[in-house]
């Protein structure tokens, strides 16, 4: 191979080796970040700093957790909480998306429904609980109402914005081609709003998980939220944290699931989290 070409290739191949990639600054710092949290936690509990003496240490949390996961109660609880969230959030999708599409599309419809929704929006979801109990006397259903309300508004708003962001030219083109309103709905409004809808769905799922636990802690006999509260009362403190972790994992998994499903539908969406000083000068 000619010398010049070899030189050029050497120049090009300032590749980081595998080793340097594993031990790159980013991975090291990330690891330090995660590890230091646990180290700090353990130390604070061990040295009984302030009220940290009451908290369980990571080791205890792990041991209790390992045992808890094998009990039947855990799986019932997890299942119940997940079911409530899924029911509530799905209801939010089912009601929020069509409503949002119509509100975004037709001004008449928007005028008739949106003002009331805007008035209802600031009311925090837990405040709906008494009404929910009246409407849906079954314990379980009323608890699912909170994730429903929590998720409804993000889904609704994102859908509305999604429709409003559709380039007006698509509508005009469809009308020129002689489409009926129904065709416009299915072929312009719905697909055009999909990116925003998917974003709203992901957000809604996240917020819905926030709400699931609320209902369970206030009223209820089953579910991870209730179990956390009970662990506090029965002085089984490591389980509190185990419960929190369980909820966190489940919430995270369901958000990821929604994101994954919707990205399949819309391959051009991406999330960017990168620091600024990386991009200013290279």
């Amino acid at each position: 191979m000619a010398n010049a070409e070899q030189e050029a290739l050497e120049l090009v191949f300032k590749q980081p080796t595998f080793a340097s990639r594993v031990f790159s600054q980013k991975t090291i710092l990330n690891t330090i970040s995660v590890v230091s949290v646990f180290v700090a936690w353990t130390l604070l509990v061990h040295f009984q700093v302030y009220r940290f003496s009451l908290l369980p240490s990571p080791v205890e949390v792990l041991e209790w957790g390992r045992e808890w996961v094998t009990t039947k109660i855990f799986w019932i609880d997890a299942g119940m909480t997940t079911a409530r969230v899924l029911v509530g959030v799905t209801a939010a999708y089912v009601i929020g998306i069509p409503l949002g599409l119509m509100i975004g599309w037709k001004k008449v419809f928007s005028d008739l429904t949106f003002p009331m929704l805007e008035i209802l929006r600031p009311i925090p979801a837990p405040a709906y609980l008494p009404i929910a109990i009246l409407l849906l006397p079954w314990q379980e259903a009323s608890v699912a109402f909170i994730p429903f309300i929590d998720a409804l508004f993000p889904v609704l708003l994102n859908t509305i914005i999604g429709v409003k962001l559709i380039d007006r030219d698509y509508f005009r083109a469809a009308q020129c081609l002689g489409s009926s309103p129904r065709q416009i709905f299915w072929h312009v409004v719905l697909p055009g709003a999909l990116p925003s809808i998917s974003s709203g769905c992901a957000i809604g799922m996240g917020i819905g998980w926030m709400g699931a636990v609320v209902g369970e802690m206030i009223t209820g006999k089953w579910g991870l939220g209730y179990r956390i509260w009970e662990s506090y009362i029965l002085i089984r403190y490591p389980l509190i944290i185990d419960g929190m972790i369980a909820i966190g994992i489940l919430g995270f998994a369901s958000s990821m699931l929604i994101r994954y499903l919707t990205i399949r539908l819309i391959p051009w969406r991406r999330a960017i989290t990168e620091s600024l000083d990386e991009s200013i000068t290279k």
Partner: protein
Amino acid sequence: MVAANQNSEVVFKNVAKGAYSKKTHTVILKDCSLNVEAGKLTVLIGPSGCGKTTVINLIAGYERPDHGEVLMDGQPVSGPNWERLVVFQEAALFPWLTCYENVMFGPVARKAISREEAHRQTMMLLNRVGLSDFRDKYPMQLSGGMQRRAELARALINKPRVMLMDEPFRGLDAMTRKLMQEYYLGLFEETGCTNLFVTSELEEAIILADKLLVMTNKPSKVKKAIDVDLPRPRDWGMAASERYLEIKAEALELLHAEAIKASAASDKAEIDLAVGFEKLKTARG
């Protein structure tokens, strides 16, 4: 009128620059040598994606060459500086400042001249670019052409030694574009500042340039430097002259050849990691 400033010459010597991503390494410039003469308007023209913006970034100091040297008056360029100012493709006026405050920004940030003097020069420049009535408007309230003019004023007030224009008139409608070109020519002919202008419009390039640098595809270098010896000050009538048409034909031919090469062959600049690595291994023995 706008005062003339000291001029500088920019030289590229065998510059190589690449962009690295997870799977491939794209060589944008390779063995690129060019000369931006002091006091002249040099225009860089080439197929899109051939690294014209990279050349600007290297001269401005936002990026460093992987190989080779970027020299201004014989000294290597070490970082961004008021001496080499860029007018960006998408207007980069600070949206939270008014027109007036934007133009004042450079001198105020550098504390090079007193505030009164800065004010005087700002008003003069705003008058010169025709925006004195709009000094208290925010960029969002200005049209595209007005934003470009404001950006020119913002750059000129600092009397840079090299002005770098990165396709500044892109996206403007034809009439506004013509007006902007006239403005720009007027400003250049007054100040006589060293200018490097990047564009993909051939006609714009020729009517503006003292020297036309035609770039190749990636990995790019200067394919040919054409002297545009049309008389200054320029006017639109020259677009029909013989010399203009000669230059245009020559440049078109060069660009055409590059375009054909680009669509025919696969992109040579993207070297697959595995393939290249193998070659390197066998070469090293």
